[in-house]
Protein backbone atom coordinates (compact mmCIF):
# COMPACT_ATOMS: atom_id res chain seq x y z
CA UNK A 1 0.00 0.00 0.00
CA UNK A 2 2.73 2.42 1.00
CA UNK A 3 4.88 1.31 -1.90
CA UNK A 4 2.04 2.00 -4.34
CA UNK A 5 1.40 5.42 -2.90
CA UNK A 6 5.05 6.34 -3.07
CA UNK A 7 5.29 5.10 -6.62
CA UNK A 8 2.27 7.08 -7.68
CA UNK A 9 3.49 10.20 -5.96
CA UNK A 10 6.90 9.86 -7.53
CA UNK A 11 5.50 9.36 -10.98
CA UNK A 12 3.37 12.49 -10.47
CA UNK A 13 6.32 14.52 -9.32
CA UNK A 14 8.42 13.21 -12.12
CA UNK A 15 5.91 14.24 -14.73
CA UNK A 16 4.75 17.54 -13.38
CA UNK A 17 7.55 19.33 -15.18
CA UNK A 18 6.83 17.47 -18.36
CA UNK A 19 3.08 17.72 -18.19
CA UNK A 20 2.60 21.38 -19.01
CA UNK A 21 5.07 21.28 -21.87
CA UNK A 22 3.48 18.32 -23.60
CA UNK A 23 -0.10 19.47 -23.15
CA UNK A 24 0.70 23.03 -24.03
CA UNK A 25 -2.07 23.75 -26.54
CA UNK A 26 -5.08 23.05 -24.28
CA UNK A 27 -3.21 24.38 -21.30
CA UNK A 28 -2.87 27.83 -22.79
CA UNK A 29 -6.15 27.97 -24.65
CA UNK A 30 -8.66 26.74 -22.12
CA UNK A 31 -7.15 27.65 -18.77
CA UNK A 32 -8.72 31.13 -18.63
CA UNK A 33 -11.17 30.11 -15.91
CA UNK A 34 -11.28 27.46 -13.23
CA UNK A 35 -14.40 25.85 -14.65
CA UNK A 36 -13.02 25.45 -18.19
CA UNK A 37 -9.71 24.20 -16.87
CA UNK A 38 -11.31 21.63 -14.60
CA UNK A 39 -13.69 20.38 -17.30
CA UNK A 40 -10.98 19.97 -19.90
CA UNK A 41 -8.75 18.32 -17.31
CA UNK A 42 -11.45 15.77 -16.44
CA UNK A 43 -12.11 15.04 -20.13
CA UNK A 44 -8.40 14.58 -20.77
CA UNK A 45 -8.14 12.29 -17.75
CA UNK A 46 -10.98 10.08 -18.98
CA UNK A 47 -9.53 9.87 -22.50
CA UNK A 48 -6.14 9.09 -21.02
CA UNK A 49 -7.55 6.32 -18.84
CA UNK A 50 -9.61 4.73 -21.60
CA UNK A 51 -6.97 4.85 -24.27
CA UNK A 52 -4.18 3.70 -21.97
CA UNK A 53 -6.20 0.70 -20.89
CA UNK A 54 -7.09 -0.23 -24.48
CA UNK A 55 -3.60 0.28 -25.83
CA UNK A 56 -2.12 -1.72 -23.00
CA UNK A 57 -4.56 -4.57 -23.64
CA UNK A 58 -3.69 -4.66 -27.33
CA UNK A 59 0.00 -3.89 -26.88
CA UNK A 60 1.25 -7.19 -28.29
CA UNK A 61 -1.06 -7.18 -31.29
CA UNK A 62 0.48 -4.32 -33.21
CA UNK A 63 3.70 -4.26 -35.17
CA UNK A 64 5.75 -1.06 -34.91
CA UNK A 65 4.44 0.12 -38.29
CA UNK A 66 0.85 -0.20 -37.08
CA UNK A 67 1.30 1.39 -33.70
CA UNK A 68 0.85 5.05 -34.52
CA UNK A 69 -2.31 4.74 -36.66
CA UNK A 70 -3.79 2.32 -34.16
CA UNK A 71 -3.08 4.64 -31.22
CA UNK A 72 -4.52 7.63 -33.03
CA UNK A 73 -7.67 5.68 -33.83
CA UNK A 74 -8.11 4.56 -30.22
CA UNK A 75 -7.43 8.02 -28.78
CA UNK A 76 -9.75 9.68 -31.31
CA UNK A 77 -12.55 7.26 -30.47
CA UNK A 78 -12.27 7.90 -26.77
CA UNK A 79 -12.15 11.65 -27.38
CA UNK A 80 -15.39 11.51 -29.35
CA UNK A 81 -16.98 9.48 -26.57
CA UNK A 82 -15.87 12.07 -24.02
CA UNK A 83 -17.35 14.80 -26.22
CA UNK A 84 -20.71 13.01 -26.47
CA UNK A 85 -20.78 12.48 -22.73
CA UNK A 86 -19.98 16.09 -21.95
CA UNK A 87 -22.64 17.33 -24.37
CA UNK A 88 -25.13 15.01 -22.71
CA UNK A 89 -24.11 16.23 -19.27
CA UNK A 90 -24.11 19.95 -19.98
CA UNK A 91 -24.38 21.61 -23.36
CA UNK A 92 -23.22 24.92 -21.92
CA UNK A 93 -19.95 23.36 -20.78
CA UNK A 94 -19.33 21.71 -24.14
CA UNK A 95 -19.97 25.07 -25.83
CA UNK A 96 -17.50 26.74 -23.51
CA UNK A 97 -14.69 24.37 -24.44
CA UNK A 98 -15.68 24.49 -28.09
CA UNK A 99 -13.02 23.26 -30.47
CA UNK A 100 -10.61 22.36 -27.72
CA UNK A 101 -12.70 19.37 -26.70
CA UNK A 102 -12.13 17.46 -30.00
CA UNK A 103 -8.56 18.76 -30.00
CA UNK A 104 -7.82 16.49 -27.02
CA UNK A 105 -6.87 14.03 -29.78
CA UNK A 106 -3.86 16.13 -30.60
CA UNK A 107 -2.71 16.40 -27.00
CA UNK A 108 0.79 14.95 -27.17
CA UNK A 109 0.54 14.07 -23.50
CA UNK A 110 -1.84 11.24 -24.32
CA UNK A 111 0.06 9.94 -27.33
CA UNK A 112 3.30 10.23 -25.42
CA UNK A 113 1.90 8.18 -22.58
CA UNK A 114 0.53 5.61 -25.01
CA UNK A 115 3.82 5.21 -26.83
CA UNK A 116 6.20 5.32 -23.92
CA UNK A 117 4.24 3.63 -21.18
CA UNK A 118 0.93 1.99 -22.02
CA UNK A 119 2.41 0.05 -24.92
CA UNK A 120 4.95 -1.56 -22.62
CA UNK A 121 3.08 -2.40 -19.43
CA UNK A 122 0.13 -4.55 -18.37
CA UNK A 123 -3.31 -2.85 -18.27
CA UNK A 124 -3.64 -2.24 -14.53
CA UNK A 125 -0.19 -0.74 -14.28
CA UNK A 126 -0.89 1.46 -17.29
CA UNK A 127 -4.19 2.58 -15.74
CA UNK A 128 -2.51 3.54 -12.50
CA UNK A 129 0.14 5.51 -14.30
CA UNK A 130 -2.46 7.20 -16.50
CA UNK A 131 -4.37 8.19 -13.38
CA UNK A 132 -1.28 9.78 -11.85
CA UNK A 133 -0.46 11.61 -15.06
CA UNK A 134 -4.05 12.75 -15.62
CA UNK A 135 -4.42 14.02 -12.06
CA UNK A 136 -1.18 15.96 -12.27
CA UNK A 137 -2.36 17.46 -15.56
CA UNK A 138 -5.64 18.50 -13.88
CA UNK A 139 -3.69 20.00 -11.01
CA UNK A 140 -1.53 22.16 -13.28
CA UNK A 141 -4.51 23.14 -15.42
CA UNK A 142 -6.61 24.04 -12.39
CA UNK A 143 -3.90 26.10 -10.71
CA UNK A 144 -3.27 27.99 -13.93
CA UNK A 145 -6.99 28.42 -14.53
CA UNK A 146 -7.58 29.81 -11.04
CA UNK A 147 -4.62 32.18 -11.30
CA UNK A 148 -5.74 33.47 -14.70
CA UNK A 149 -9.35 33.87 -13.64
CA UNK A 150 -8.51 35.64 -10.39
CA UNK A 151 -5.89 37.97 -11.88
CA UNK A 152 -7.58 38.52 -15.23
CA UNK A 153 -11.22 38.97 -14.29
CA UNK A 154 -10.98 39.60 -10.54
CA UNK A 155 -13.38 36.76 -9.76
CA UNK A 156 -12.89 33.14 -8.90
CA UNK A 157 -15.00 30.02 -9.51
CA UNK A 158 -17.51 31.76 -11.78
CA UNK A 159 -20.15 29.38 -13.19
CA UNK A 160 -18.74 26.48 -11.21
CA UNK A 161 -22.29 25.09 -10.92
CA UNK A 162 -22.21 24.10 -14.60
CA UNK A 163 -19.94 21.21 -13.66
CA UNK A 164 -20.76 20.74 -9.98
CA UNK A 165 -24.48 21.26 -9.37
CA UNK A 166 -23.92 21.93 -5.66
CA UNK A 167 -21.42 24.74 -6.30
CA UNK A 168 -23.98 27.47 -6.84
CA UNK A 169 -22.53 30.05 -4.47
CA UNK A 170 -18.87 29.42 -5.00
CA UNK A 171 -18.16 32.56 -6.94
CA UNK A 172 -16.34 35.19 -4.97
CA UNK A 173 -14.79 38.46 -5.94
CA UNK A 174 -11.07 38.71 -5.27
CA UNK A 175 -10.47 42.12 -6.78
CA UNK A 176 -12.98 44.81 -7.63
CA UNK A 177 -11.20 45.64 -10.83
CA UNK A 178 -9.04 43.02 -12.55
CA UNK A 179 -5.42 43.64 -11.51
CA UNK A 180 -3.85 41.92 -14.52
CA UNK A 181 -6.22 41.61 -17.51
CA UNK A 182 -3.38 40.27 -19.65
CA UNK A 183 -3.70 37.00 -17.72
CA UNK A 184 -6.77 36.11 -19.76
CA UNK A 185 -4.89 36.23 -23.05
CA UNK A 186 -2.58 33.48 -24.34
CA UNK A 187 0.46 35.66 -23.73
CA UNK A 188 -0.55 36.05 -20.11
CA UNK A 189 -0.96 32.29 -19.92
CA UNK A 190 2.61 31.83 -21.16
CA UNK A 191 3.87 34.22 -18.49
CA UNK A 192 1.99 32.55 -15.65
CA UNK A 193 3.02 29.11 -16.86
CA UNK A 194 6.64 30.24 -16.83
CA UNK A 195 6.20 31.37 -13.24
CA UNK A 196 4.67 28.02 -12.31
CA UNK A 197 7.54 26.11 -13.88
CA UNK A 198 10.10 28.36 -12.21
CA UNK A 199 8.33 27.85 -8.88
CA UNK A 200 8.37 24.09 -9.34
CA UNK A 201 12.02 24.05 -10.34
CA UNK A 202 12.88 26.08 -7.28
CA UNK A 203 11.20 23.56 -5.02
CA UNK A 204 12.75 20.65 -6.85
CA UNK A 205 16.22 21.99 -6.43
CA UNK A 206 15.97 23.09 -2.81
CA UNK A 207 16.22 19.64 -1.14
CA UNK A 208 19.12 18.82 -3.42
CA UNK A 209 21.25 21.35 -1.60
CA UNK A 210 20.91 19.45 1.65
CA UNK A 211 21.54 16.03 0.21
CA UNK A 212 25.24 15.34 -0.20
CA UNK A 213 25.04 13.45 -3.47
CA UNK A 214 21.94 14.00 -5.60
CA UNK A 215 21.28 11.00 -7.77
CA UNK A 216 22.41 11.79 -11.29
CA UNK A 217 19.64 11.72 -13.86
CA UNK A 218 20.12 8.69 -16.07
CA UNK A 219 20.52 10.13 -19.55
CA UNK A 220 17.98 9.17 -22.15
CA UNK A 221 15.50 7.56 -19.79
CA UNK A 222 13.32 10.68 -19.46
CA UNK A 223 10.14 10.63 -21.44
CA UNK A 224 10.90 13.80 -23.27
CA UNK A 225 11.41 12.11 -26.59
CA UNK A 226 8.61 9.79 -27.41
CA UNK A 227 9.48 9.15 -31.03
CA UNK A 228 11.01 5.70 -30.95
CA UNK A 229 11.36 3.65 -34.04
CA UNK A 230 7.97 3.38 -35.68
Amino acid at each position, binding site marked *: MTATATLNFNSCRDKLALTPLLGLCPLLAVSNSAISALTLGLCTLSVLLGSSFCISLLRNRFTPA*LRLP*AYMLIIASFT*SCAEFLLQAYSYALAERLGLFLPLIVSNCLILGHAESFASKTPPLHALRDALGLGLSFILVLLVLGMLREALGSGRLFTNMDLLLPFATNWEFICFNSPPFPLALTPSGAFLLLAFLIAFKNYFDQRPAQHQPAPEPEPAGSKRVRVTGQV
Partner: protein
Amino acid sequence: MSDTNNRVQNPPLAARGAILRLGLLALGAVLLLTLAYHATAARRIAQQHQAMLATLTTLLPPIPHDNVLLDASFIIDPATPRFAQQELLGLSTARTAYLARSADAVSGVILPLETAGYNGPLKLLLGIDANGTITGLRILEQHETAGLGARIELDQSNWLLSFDRRSLDNTPPPLWALKQDGGEFDQFSGATITPRAIVNAVRKALEFFALNRTALLALNLEEPQA
Protein backbone atom coordinates in the same frame (compact mmCIF):
# COMPACT_ATOMS: atom_id res chain seq x y z
CA MET B 1 -4.57 -14.62 -64.40
CA SER B 2 -2.42 -11.63 -65.23
CA ASP B 3 0.58 -10.68 -63.19
CA THR B 4 -0.98 -7.57 -61.65
CA ASN B 5 -4.02 -9.48 -60.50
CA ASN B 6 -1.81 -11.97 -58.80
CA ARG B 7 -0.05 -9.29 -56.81
CA VAL B 8 -3.25 -7.70 -55.65
CA GLN B 9 -4.68 -11.00 -54.51
CA ASN B 10 -1.59 -12.12 -52.62
CA PRO B 11 -0.09 -9.30 -50.64
CA PRO B 12 2.70 -10.31 -48.27
CA LEU B 13 1.44 -12.26 -45.31
CA ALA B 14 2.58 -9.70 -42.72
CA ALA B 15 0.78 -6.87 -44.54
CA ARG B 16 -2.40 -8.92 -44.68
CA GLY B 17 -2.25 -9.46 -40.95
CA ALA B 18 -1.67 -5.76 -40.40
CA ILE B 19 -4.60 -4.77 -42.59
CA LEU B 20 -6.80 -7.26 -40.80
CA ARG B 21 -5.82 -6.00 -37.36
CA LEU B 22 -6.24 -2.37 -38.22
CA GLY B 23 -9.57 -3.19 -39.84
CA LEU B 24 -10.75 -5.01 -36.74
CA LEU B 25 -9.66 -2.10 -34.58
CA ALA B 26 -11.53 0.33 -36.81
CA LEU B 27 -14.59 -1.87 -36.57
CA GLY B 28 -14.32 -1.82 -32.80
CA ALA B 29 -14.00 1.96 -32.84
CA VAL B 30 -17.08 2.28 -35.06
CA LEU B 31 -19.03 0.06 -32.68
CA LEU B 32 -17.94 2.05 -29.64
CA LEU B 33 -18.77 5.38 -31.26
CA THR B 34 -22.15 4.20 -32.54
CA LEU B 35 -23.00 2.97 -29.09
CA ALA B 36 -21.89 6.19 -27.40
CA TYR B 37 -23.67 8.33 -30.01
CA HIS B 38 -27.01 6.59 -29.60
CA ALA B 39 -26.77 6.18 -25.85
CA THR B 40 -26.30 9.93 -25.37
CA ALA B 41 -28.42 11.22 -28.29
CA ALA B 42 -31.60 11.91 -26.34
CA ARG B 43 -29.83 13.66 -23.47
CA ARG B 44 -27.60 15.69 -25.78
CA ILE B 45 -30.54 17.07 -27.74
CA ALA B 46 -32.48 17.76 -24.55
CA GLN B 47 -29.47 19.62 -23.10
CA GLN B 48 -29.04 21.72 -26.23
CA HIS B 49 -32.73 22.55 -26.28
CA GLN B 50 -32.69 23.44 -22.62
CA ALA B 51 -29.60 25.66 -22.95
CA MET B 52 -31.18 27.64 -25.80
CA LEU B 53 -34.49 27.90 -23.96
CA ALA B 54 -32.75 29.11 -20.80
CA THR B 55 -31.04 31.87 -22.78
CA LEU B 56 -34.30 32.91 -24.43
CA THR B 57 -36.20 32.91 -21.17
CA THR B 58 -33.69 35.20 -19.48
CA LEU B 59 -34.24 37.64 -22.33
CA LEU B 60 -37.89 38.12 -21.45
CA PRO B 61 -38.14 38.07 -17.67
CA PRO B 62 -40.97 40.56 -17.18
CA ILE B 63 -43.00 39.44 -20.19
CA PRO B 64 -45.69 36.90 -19.50
CA HIS B 65 -45.68 34.21 -22.12
CA ASP B 66 -47.42 30.90 -22.23
CA ASN B 67 -45.87 29.48 -25.37
CA VAL B 68 -42.65 27.56 -25.86
CA LEU B 69 -40.37 30.21 -27.35
CA LEU B 70 -38.47 27.76 -29.49
CA ASP B 71 -41.69 26.74 -31.25
CA ALA B 72 -42.70 30.29 -32.18
CA SER B 73 -39.71 31.27 -34.24
CA PHE B 74 -39.25 32.91 -37.60
CA ILE B 75 -36.24 33.54 -39.80
CA ILE B 76 -34.94 36.99 -40.64
CA ASP B 77 -32.83 36.65 -43.76
CA PRO B 78 -30.85 39.63 -45.06
CA ALA B 79 -31.10 38.18 -48.58
CA THR B 80 -34.91 38.21 -48.69
CA PRO B 81 -36.29 41.42 -47.16
CA ARG B 82 -39.45 40.68 -45.25
CA PHE B 83 -39.65 43.71 -42.97
CA ALA B 84 -39.13 47.43 -43.53
CA GLN B 85 -35.48 48.51 -43.23
CA GLN B 86 -34.28 45.10 -42.21
CA GLU B 87 -30.68 46.28 -42.61
CA LEU B 88 -31.08 48.11 -39.27
CA LEU B 89 -30.47 44.76 -37.59
CA GLY B 90 -27.09 44.51 -39.29
CA LEU B 91 -27.43 40.81 -40.03
CA SER B 92 -24.92 39.16 -42.36
CA THR B 93 -26.56 35.74 -42.28
CA ALA B 94 -30.10 34.49 -41.75
CA ARG B 95 -30.90 34.31 -38.04
CA THR B 96 -33.84 33.20 -35.95
CA ALA B 97 -36.20 35.51 -34.09
CA TYR B 98 -38.69 34.37 -31.46
CA LEU B 99 -42.17 35.50 -30.44
CA ALA B 100 -43.56 35.47 -26.90
CA ARG B 101 -47.30 35.00 -26.77
CA SER B 102 -49.71 35.43 -23.93
CA ALA B 103 -53.35 34.54 -24.39
CA ASP B 104 -53.00 34.55 -28.17
CA ALA B 105 -51.53 38.06 -28.34
CA VAL B 106 -47.89 38.75 -29.01
CA SER B 107 -46.41 40.04 -25.74
CA GLY B 108 -42.82 40.37 -26.85
CA VAL B 109 -40.25 39.50 -29.43
CA ILE B 110 -36.62 38.38 -29.38
CA LEU B 111 -34.71 39.91 -32.28
CA PRO B 112 -31.30 38.81 -33.56
CA LEU B 113 -28.83 41.58 -34.25
CA GLU B 114 -25.26 41.85 -35.39
CA THR B 115 -22.60 44.53 -35.47
CA ALA B 116 -18.89 44.80 -36.07
CA GLY B 117 -16.84 44.61 -32.89
CA TYR B 118 -13.14 45.24 -32.44
CA ASN B 119 -12.01 41.79 -33.57
CA GLY B 120 -14.95 40.49 -35.57
CA PRO B 121 -18.71 40.24 -35.64
CA LEU B 122 -20.72 40.62 -32.44
CA LYS B 123 -23.90 38.57 -32.52
CA LEU B 124 -26.58 39.47 -30.01
CA LEU B 125 -30.15 38.67 -29.05
CA LEU B 126 -32.43 41.46 -27.87
CA GLY B 127 -35.70 40.94 -26.00
CA ILE B 128 -38.31 43.68 -26.52
CA ASP B 129 -41.81 43.82 -25.08
CA ALA B 130 -44.84 44.88 -27.09
CA ASN B 131 -44.35 48.54 -26.12
CA GLY B 132 -40.78 48.67 -27.39
CA THR B 133 -39.06 48.44 -23.98
CA ILE B 134 -35.95 46.30 -23.70
CA THR B 135 -36.36 43.25 -21.48
CA GLY B 136 -32.94 41.75 -21.99
CA LEU B 137 -29.78 41.73 -24.07
CA ARG B 138 -27.46 38.74 -24.43
CA ILE B 139 -24.36 37.97 -26.46
CA LEU B 140 -24.35 34.91 -28.67
CA GLU B 141 -20.94 35.34 -30.23
CA GLN B 142 -18.06 37.75 -29.67
CA HIS B 143 -14.35 37.83 -30.47
CA GLU B 144 -13.32 40.82 -28.36
CA THR B 145 -10.04 41.16 -26.51
CA ALA B 146 -10.05 39.22 -23.26
CA GLY B 147 -9.94 41.54 -20.26
CA LEU B 148 -10.94 44.59 -22.32
CA GLY B 149 -13.80 44.38 -24.81
CA ALA B 150 -14.74 40.91 -23.65
CA ARG B 151 -15.84 42.40 -20.32
CA ILE B 152 -19.23 42.98 -21.93
CA GLU B 153 -19.90 39.32 -21.09
CA LEU B 154 -22.35 38.90 -18.24
CA ASP B 155 -20.03 36.65 -16.24
CA GLN B 156 -17.50 39.47 -16.16
CA SER B 157 -19.61 42.57 -15.62
CA ASN B 158 -23.20 43.73 -15.36
CA TRP B 159 -22.87 46.10 -18.27
CA LEU B 160 -25.40 44.24 -20.45
CA LEU B 161 -28.02 44.71 -17.75
CA SER B 162 -27.81 48.50 -18.13
CA PHE B 163 -29.94 48.12 -21.25
CA ASP B 164 -32.86 46.60 -19.35
CA ARG B 165 -36.04 48.71 -19.23
CA ARG B 166 -34.71 51.23 -21.73
CA SER B 167 -36.71 52.27 -24.77
CA LEU B 168 -36.60 54.98 -27.42
CA ASP B 169 -39.19 56.86 -25.28
CA ASN B 170 -37.29 56.96 -21.99
CA THR B 171 -33.88 57.32 -23.68
CA PRO B 172 -34.07 59.58 -26.74
CA PRO B 173 -31.63 58.82 -29.60
CA PRO B 174 -28.97 61.43 -28.66
CA LEU B 175 -28.57 59.71 -25.29
CA TRP B 176 -27.99 56.31 -26.92
CA ALA B 177 -24.23 56.79 -26.68
CA LEU B 178 -21.37 56.20 -24.25
CA LYS B 179 -20.94 58.65 -21.38
CA GLN B 180 -17.73 59.98 -22.95
CA ASP B 181 -19.75 60.75 -26.09
CA GLY B 182 -22.42 62.56 -24.06
CA GLY B 183 -24.76 59.61 -23.71
CA GLU B 184 -26.01 57.45 -20.86
CA PHE B 185 -24.02 54.21 -21.20
CA ASP B 186 -20.82 53.29 -19.35
CA GLN B 187 -17.69 52.49 -21.28
CA PHE B 188 -14.83 50.29 -20.10
CA SER B 189 -11.42 51.75 -19.47
CA GLY B 190 -9.32 50.78 -22.45
CA ALA B 191 -12.27 49.53 -24.46
CA THR B 192 -14.73 51.91 -26.07
CA ILE B 193 -15.14 50.40 -29.53
CA THR B 194 -17.03 47.33 -28.34
CA PRO B 195 -19.55 49.07 -26.06
CA ARG B 196 -20.08 51.85 -28.59
CA ALA B 197 -20.85 49.31 -31.33
CA ILE B 198 -23.35 47.52 -29.10
CA VAL B 199 -25.12 50.72 -27.98
CA ASN B 200 -25.57 51.76 -31.61
CA ALA B 201 -26.70 48.31 -32.71
CA VAL B 202 -29.31 48.13 -29.95
CA ARG B 203 -30.65 51.61 -30.78
CA LYS B 204 -31.00 50.62 -34.44
CA ALA B 205 -32.77 47.41 -33.46
CA LEU B 206 -35.26 49.45 -31.43
CA GLU B 207 -35.81 51.67 -34.46
CA PHE B 208 -36.41 48.54 -36.52
CA PHE B 209 -38.97 47.37 -33.98
CA ALA B 210 -40.72 50.75 -33.99
CA LEU B 211 -40.96 50.67 -37.79
CA ASN B 212 -42.25 47.10 -37.91
CA ARG B 213 -44.20 47.00 -34.65
CA THR B 214 -47.60 46.39 -36.22
CA ALA B 215 -46.30 43.71 -38.56
CA LEU B 216 -44.39 41.92 -35.80
CA LEU B 217 -47.26 41.99 -33.31
CA ALA B 218 -49.65 40.68 -35.93
CA LEU B 219 -47.40 37.76 -36.86
CA ASN B 220 -49.28 34.55 -36.77
CA LEU B 221 -46.93 31.63 -36.58
CA GLU B 222 -49.51 28.88 -36.42
CA GLU B 223 -48.43 27.67 -39.84
CA PRO B 224 -44.77 26.70 -39.94
CA GLN B 225 -42.59 29.47 -41.32
CA ALA B 226 -39.75 28.88 -43.70
